[in-house]
């Protein structure tokens, strides 16, 4: 057995202090302290987010953009302030490029539906073999509607994009590349800057699915030079029900509305309706106001963190977890890219992920078991499902130790 060096807890990242910001972490599950290792499914929320949403409903609740009374004004101000927080956080040039949606799924559907209206039969969209179903199915629906062709960039056994295959996928009909920034099933961080550069050489815009990237790194859409960026509030320590589509203004301007209704119009008569400007044109109906305010507060929380410390800490967690898990007999790590977020997918001989989930739960360890909405990835690795431990900056080395011990126990129990 190799000597595995336990990362020392260091002065740069005071994890005990950070954990106190997340009230949910302080509880027992089946008689054990909760070790929440399912952050790729959804993250926990800091106290400040919970309080901001509570305060909104206690004091400020009103519809936005509709009234002149005091509450309507407060709600509208706070809602638009949240949009500005998002803009600042991802360094978008303009708040007009920040569209509030329900989450990553809706953001991608919006692009497939609206940008997709400009596509014709035979036009091509490139996706990759490691996409979440949210970045596969909307394009298949578009294919059914318009006859676009889907091309799929393969992955390597290590779980990295096979970039050498990318040039061969471009054609004169390529209209968009849609790929994930970070894989939720494998943890791979994709070289998206490079993909964007290659795509732009062919005049092809790029949509990035940022659902799993946002919680682990600072994202700058101008530095990435991407054309669309989609993410979910609930995976970014904010509430469910709210997400963001960033779109380059010149592209959004040219896109038809996604849904029709209130908020998205300027004038309506039965003969003709003129649409509102950006971003409201894409926000039909009453939005998730409390959700947006909660997301804005989550972003303010994240902006106060020392991100070089966060990333260094998470990297140590990843390396430690990978070493500890690989040391367990019968365990195989799925996804061994050079660049990964703090996420380990694995299978174990004789222990099905579903049994694993139950056994770990008994020890207070929350992990995900299943296909992670990435069935093509499971097919590629010829496994029906994996177990996945996905960490955030509030997880600890002790939790990884408990995971490793429980995995050994699972094997003893079932093998």
């Amino acid at each position: 057995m190799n000597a595995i060096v336990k990362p020392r807890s260091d002065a740069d990242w005071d994890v005990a202090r950070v954990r106190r910001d997340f009230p949910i972490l302080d509880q027992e599950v089946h008689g054990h302290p909760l070790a929440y290792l399912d952050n790729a499914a959804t993250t926990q929320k800091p106290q400040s987010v919970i309080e901001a949403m509570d305060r909104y409903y206690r004091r400020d609740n009103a519809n936005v953009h509709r009234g002149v009374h005091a509450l309507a004004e407060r709600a509208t101000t706070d809602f638009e302030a949240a949009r500005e927080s998002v803009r600042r956080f991802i360094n978008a040039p303009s708040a007009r490029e920040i569209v509030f949606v329900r989450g990553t799924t809706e953001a991608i559907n919006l692009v497939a539906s609206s940008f997709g209206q400009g596509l014709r039969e035979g036009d091509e969209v490139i996706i990759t073999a490691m996409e979440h179903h949210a970045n596969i199915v909307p394009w298949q629906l578009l294919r059914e509607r318009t006859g676009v062709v889907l091309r799929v960039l393969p992955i390597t056994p290590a779980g990295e994009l096979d970039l050498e295959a990318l040039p061969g996928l471009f054609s004169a009909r390529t209209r968009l590349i849609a790929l994930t920034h970070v894989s939720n099933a494998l943890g791979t961080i994709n070289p998206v800057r490079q993909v964007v550069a290659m795509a732009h050489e062919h005049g092809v815009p790029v949509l990035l699915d940022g659902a799993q990237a946002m919680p682990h790194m600072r994202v700058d859409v101008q530095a990435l030079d991407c054309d669309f960026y989609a993410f979910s509030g609930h995976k970014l320590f904010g509430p469910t029900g709210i997400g963001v589509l960033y779109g380059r203004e010149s592209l959004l301007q040219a896109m038809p509305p996604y849904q029709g209704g209130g908020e998205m119009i300027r004038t309506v008569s039965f003969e003709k309706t003129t649409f509102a400007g950006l971003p409201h044109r894409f926000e039909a109906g009453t939005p998730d106001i409390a959700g947006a305010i909660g997301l804005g507060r989550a972003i303010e929380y994240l902006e106060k963190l020392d991100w070089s410390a966060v990333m260094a800490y998470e990297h140590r967690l990843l390396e430690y977890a990978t070493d500890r898990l690989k040391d367990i007999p019968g365990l195989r790590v799925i996804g061994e890219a050079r660049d990964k977020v703090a996420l380990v997918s694995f299978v174990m001989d004789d222990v099905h992920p579903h049994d694993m989930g139950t056994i770990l739960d008994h020890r207070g360890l929350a992990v995900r078991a299943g296909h992670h909405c990435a069935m093509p990835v499971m097919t590629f690795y010829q496994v029906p499902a994996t177990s996945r431990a996905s960490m955030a900056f509030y997880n600890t080395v002790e939790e990884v130790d408990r995971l490793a011990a429980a995995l050994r126990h699972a094997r003893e129990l079932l093998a």
Partner: protein
Amino acid sequence: MSELNDLYQELILDHKRHPRNFRDMPDATRAVDGHNPLCGDQLRLFVKVVGGRVEDVSFIGVGCAISMASASMLTETVKGRTVDEAQRLFADVHDLLTNDHPHTDPAELGNLGALAGVHEYPMRVKCATLSWHTLDTALTSDEDSVTTE
């Protein structure tokens, strides 16, 4: 929550490690695929029904310990029974696993009583009932596949 050992009883582990009647059946009268999309459990159940009696029953597939053991125990119990008896067993197992106050006495179900512990794990009930739903489909309809959704 109850002890993990109530779920993973020795009998269940034995069936998981050594599934009975785990084989293809070329002369089956019905073959039905059962699929649990939530966790990817997938099995194919074969039955040979002659004169209203289940002469042979077998399965192949992949899945968690609970679904594999349940399917294996199913084949042992159902083999040789009449179709009516098999359907009553399905109803009893379903009752035992899904009702808070089942009228079925696990002791009367023989080995199948070992599945009773699954009731305490709502997320796992579908694992245990997959093969039984598949059997029910094989015996009562013309469908070739069934999912737990």
